[in-house]
């Protein structure tokens, strides 16, 4: 950061004073983050990077082991399996949950009376404790008596083994994940409220169809929020843990999910805290970090084509 500031200090004519004061003020505004970053993120990251090249069981002092942990990443079949599971989940969960959240937000946006009630109702699943949600969904998704398959039976469809058939475990989890889009709904709703009503009125006068209004007005004007939601959901979905852990891996182990429901963070948690391979778990964490980093960089690059900011 010092270098950045020094470079800005290079004397320039005219605007250099303003430039300089902008730089100083900008740095002042971001300083809380920077201090916290050094103490609580950068420092610990260096330590964790060091652990990832060590043998560390939390109990004995770490012992340098070179790239052994990273080599193990390449040969451990569960790395590929669990990464594949997490990608499968992210690939389906992210678009589905954003579409779902957008539909709900648009519905809420048009609700006049008792809007507060409906907003709260849509937010409810995200604040119901995981213990209750996990237990409940094992019931709802039960292949024989669950409401989901009973609903499908009404249309003559024989529902799959959501909680018992390995090929249907992940779709079942994705189905469950769509319940907790409440946070995304709120973000999108706030964005929708920010779209000036006049734009729609003008479009109505011009005779634009609902779909055209949606693609030409709504989407561009909330694209900043959509982008945010896309990034955050991608990152979050690759780190899915709590719900699946309580459903299939906690005290109520279920054999059906042991391979097909083994998500990357669940395997990482096991290595770290159940098997005490903290060094290997650190290497796993770094691998995931790098993967997410690359994905986000790609998303940031692509976003320049479709995200629209009024201010810039």
């Amino acid at each position, binding site marked *: 950061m010092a270098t950045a500031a020094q470079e800005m200090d290079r004397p320039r004519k005219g605007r250099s004073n303003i430039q300089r004061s902008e730089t100083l003020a900008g740095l002042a505004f971001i300083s809380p983050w920077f201090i916290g970053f050094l103490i609580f993120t950068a420092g610990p990251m260096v330590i964790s990077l060091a652990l990832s090249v060590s043998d560390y*069981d939390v*109990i004995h002092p770490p012992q340098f082991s070179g790239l052994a942990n990273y080599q193990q990443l390449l040969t451990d079949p569960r790395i590929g399996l669990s990464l594949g599971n997490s990608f499968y989940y992210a690939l389906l969960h992210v678009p589905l949950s954003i579409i779902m959240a957008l539909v709900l937000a648009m519905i809420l946006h048009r609700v006049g009376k008792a809007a507060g009630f409906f907003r709260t109702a849509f937010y409810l699943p995200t604040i119901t404790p995981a213990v209750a949600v996990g237990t409940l969904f094992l019931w709802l998704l039960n292949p*024989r008596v669950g409401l989901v398959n009973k609903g499908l039976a009404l249309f003559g469809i024989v529902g799959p083994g959501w*909680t018992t058939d390995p090929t249907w475990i992940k779709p079942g989890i994705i189905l469950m994940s769509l319940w907790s889009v409440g946070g995304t709904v709120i973000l999108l709703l706030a964005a929708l409220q920010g779209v000036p009503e006049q734009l729609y009125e003008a479009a109505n006068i011009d005779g634009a169809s609902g779909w055209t209004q949606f693609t030409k007005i709504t989407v561009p004007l909330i694209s900043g929020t959509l982008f945010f939601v896309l990034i955050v959901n991608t990152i979050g979905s690759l780190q899915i843990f709590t719900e699946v852990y309580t459903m299939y891996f906690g005290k109520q182990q279920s054999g059906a999910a042991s391979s097909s429901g083994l998500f990357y963070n669940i395997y990482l948690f096991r290595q770290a805290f159940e098997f005490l391979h903290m060094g290997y778990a650190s290497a796993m964490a770094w691998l995931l970090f790098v993967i997410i980093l690359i994905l986000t960089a790609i998303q940031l690059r692509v976003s320049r084509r479709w995200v629209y900011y009024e201010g810039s």
Partner: protein
Amino acid sequence: MQFSKWLKPVAVASTAALALLVFAAPGMAQDATPEATSDMGMMMMEAPAPNTDLSGELNFMGFGLGDEIATTRVDYAQAQLPNVTLHFSEGGFDAQQFLTAFASGNPPDIVYISQQTLGTYAANDTFMPLDQCIADQDIDMSQYRDVAVNQVTINGSVYGIPEFYNSLMLIINTKALDDAGLTLDDVDTSDWNHLAELNQQLTVGNGNSLTRMGFDAKLPEFLPLWVRANGGQMLSDDGKTAMLNSPEVVQALEFAVSIYDEQGGFAAMKAFRDTWDFFGSNNQVPADQIGFWPMEQWYMNVLAGVSPDAPVAFKPFTDKDGNPISYVTGSAWAIPVGSKNPEAACAFAKAMTSVNAWVAAAEARAEKRAADGSINTGVFTGNRLADEAIFGGGIVAPIDNQAFQQGVDVILSLQDHGFAMPANPAGTEFQQIWQDAVNRVLNGEQTAQESLDQAQQEAQTALDAAWGQSS
């Protein structure tokens, strides 16, 4: 694993029952106080004099107060150590919580943990060997059951003081037997062809139309039982060599899986089993949803509470030679390296697992059961002498209900026929590896041989690494 307060549906509303409940659980946040000792000591053996030399604090992890089995014994231990202040941290043992505290040099003074998990930590030098403690406190290790002691012994040193002890037996739905024209004598697990036949005879429906499972092999968790019954073992006695792809294991797994295949596959069975009202009055026995199955003893307590009149019977599980066997799980007290008060911790563990403490707990349980009029099946412990005192000394009255009296007798007869997985430093990981292997077969992803070959390799690598680290 105690099921103490089987409140009766309506009577629970009455203030009397409520008062009892409150008395049994006097506020989770409070430290146990010596005053709460109540009328304990009525039927007690001669209690040793309190140890006033020990003082200071004891910080717990993994042990929450709760039912009378816990509180009564804590009261007793506190009375034995009047100058020690006990601080309980509610909730079960949590690896994350423990490890972060340990890594920062701030471990609890005493830990309550399952015997299986204990091995991993003991071999990693997280827990102290208790040789000194046992000598100083003059703890008679012969009072604990051998299986329980073996499970907490690593490299010749004891790392835990055994607490609860869970045996396993067959629970039988006698209505299913009647329907098929069978009697209790026909229920026998020593001949596997016969067992497969029984399964067929008792099963009603198939796959998605299954309405009664004939027999449940309880995979993946009970594979060790099947292997043992087949004369094999999954891990050498010294805990160093995995034997997961030995013919006995492969054969045992293939047979146990075939039980499910006969009923239409594991997935369909699981879907059916998940619908059972397992802890309710219309559980799978009165609802006639199963023929018979091996199960831990605590479930007898559940049945006694919720469906005392169900058509149920109990028998030991037998190996191929007809000998009763029981796969045992349990819990123990351990003292982390870095404990600030190891002497008091040791004395506390001794007091909690003593005959006197268990007898006091069994009395409290008996009183409570008598008060709400439910069946008392007693308390089964890792302490042989305590079991003798509890069941031989009139604390647990003979049960009018023949079935449950027989169940208690079966458990008592099984207590010395138990076996457990040998202690090893990769305990949790080893278990995960073989359970995953079973799951792969149940899910049709691999054959038993393939899956166990893979597991064998993984397990041996894990064991070698863990033993290498611990030595």
